[in-house]
């Protein structure tokens, strides 16, 4: 069960290297590493010398994506232990950046949404940030009732990890929060919610 066809549902166009950029910042999570590795033929010395990778392995630990990314030979390659650490570094980087820099984000939707929010907070235009979805379809969902955010939601309905209500996951998306909307599905008749379906594996 899913409420779909809503305009705010993000569209991820896929990674392409912007040839004129003075600096390329790649924020990659998990399988998002492969989006950049697939771009390898597009790299030349100039692009490599201007590129900086911020990588958090998450679910891709043990698959060796870090070695492959390091092997690309970019100017900077840095791995973060958690998404929060990666976002903190990204903030620091954008705070002193100049026009001409480009931000590329690849990974799960929850990660793209959070990294995108950092870009928007630093005055980047939504349409100028280049994104590609890779890996799990798991969603980051905000409960509209208690406002708590639950990461890695794979089923709908699911139980809010903050207030315990049964939430239907909608396609309604907030750029500001980088999260989808979850709405109580059995408000009138507690316990009448349909069985959860694994929609976002």
């Amino acid at each position: 069960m899913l409420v779909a066809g809503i305009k705010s549902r993000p569209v991820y166009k896929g990674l392409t290297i912007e040839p004129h950029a003075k600096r390329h910042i790649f924020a990659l999570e998990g399988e998002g590493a492969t989006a950049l590795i697939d771009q390898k033929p597009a790299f030349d010395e100039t692009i490599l010398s201007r590129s900086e990778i911020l990588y958090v392995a998450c679910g891709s630990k043990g698959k060796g994506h870090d070695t492959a990314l390091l092997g690309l030979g970019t100017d900077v390659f840095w791995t973060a232990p958690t998404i929060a650490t990666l976002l903190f570094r990204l903030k620091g980087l954008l705070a002193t950046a100049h026009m001409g820099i480009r931000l590329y984000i690849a990974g799960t939707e929850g990660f793209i949404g959070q990294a995108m929010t950092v870009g928007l907070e630093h005055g980047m235009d939504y349409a100028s940030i280049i994104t590609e979805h890779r890996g799990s379809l798991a969603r980051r969902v905000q409960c509209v009732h208690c406002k708590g955010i639950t990461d890695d939601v794979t089923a709908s309905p699911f139980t809010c990890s903050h207030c315990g209500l049964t939430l239907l996951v909608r396609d309604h998306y907030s750029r500001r929060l980088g999260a989808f909307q979850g709405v109580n599905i059995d408000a009138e008749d507690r316990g009448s919610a349909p069985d959860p379906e694994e929609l976002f594996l």
Partner: protein
Amino acid sequence: MSGGTEVPVRVTKVTPVAERIKRFRFERLDGKPMPYFSGGAHIIVSMHDDGHVRRNAYSLMSPPHDCAAYEISVLHVEDSRGGSTFMHERVKEGDELKVSYPVNLFQPDWRARKHLLIAGGIGITPFIAMMEQFTREGANFELHYAVRTRDRGAYWKELAERYGSQRIKIYCDAEGITMPLGRLLDSQPLGTHLYVCGPSGMIDGVLRAGIEAGWPEQNLHSERFLSSLPGKPFTVELVRSGKTVRVGHHESMLEAIEAAGVDASFLCRGGACGQCETGVVTCDGKLLHHDVYLNDEEKAAGRKVMICVSRFEGKTLHLDL
């Protein structure tokens, strides 16, 4: 009228500003305040020139919060089609005119961290109102203004005095001082939006330099003062109204169609907004698209034409009007 509501106004002041540039102040005949506008907006001034109606678009340069009057500046164009000559030679203090409600096709992006304004010549006018608004909103801005000679450049002195030399930079061709565009583009903080207004060649150059400096197109904004170019006279058939309209050498299709009593839609009259988009029913000949609204594919397809600035050469042109 399709360009929006018109307001009857009186010309309450005409001020010579610089060589070939005059400022006009308009107040409403009924004494009411003018509608609010936002920095970057323009109005269409209707001029009745011996039975011929001329309509030109001019950027509003008075402070956007001040509804007592509207002010515009008019450059007397060297090979004027008549509008700027009319404004310069015929319009006097006390005259009555009609102006349209304001329309803004050059809106600043209010999410910007900083606004970088680049003006050439008379292209300064939309920025004068914008800077008033930026100042009131506490927004960060910087103006880089290129003039041919000091006496032909309007307002540079007043602006430098009002906003200071940190924010206002003047570049004078005659003194051999050119704008360091590359350095400017490379040194802007993330989140800067650029706005350029001036001669077409300058706009093209600045936009191209922006893309080459790695700026996303979303951060580059421009406004052109296009006017319909003169050309060979031609005839156009309007299929819905069943009229045949002769377009003269100095006339635009839109002007000729209006003169024939057909109400055609428009907003900018400068090939930028897309409001006057008209379907081409049949075309045996060549459409001369002069607008910046249609993309190259649409222009090549020849199924639409912007009648405010485009022309036609050939045998027959039938429009859906």
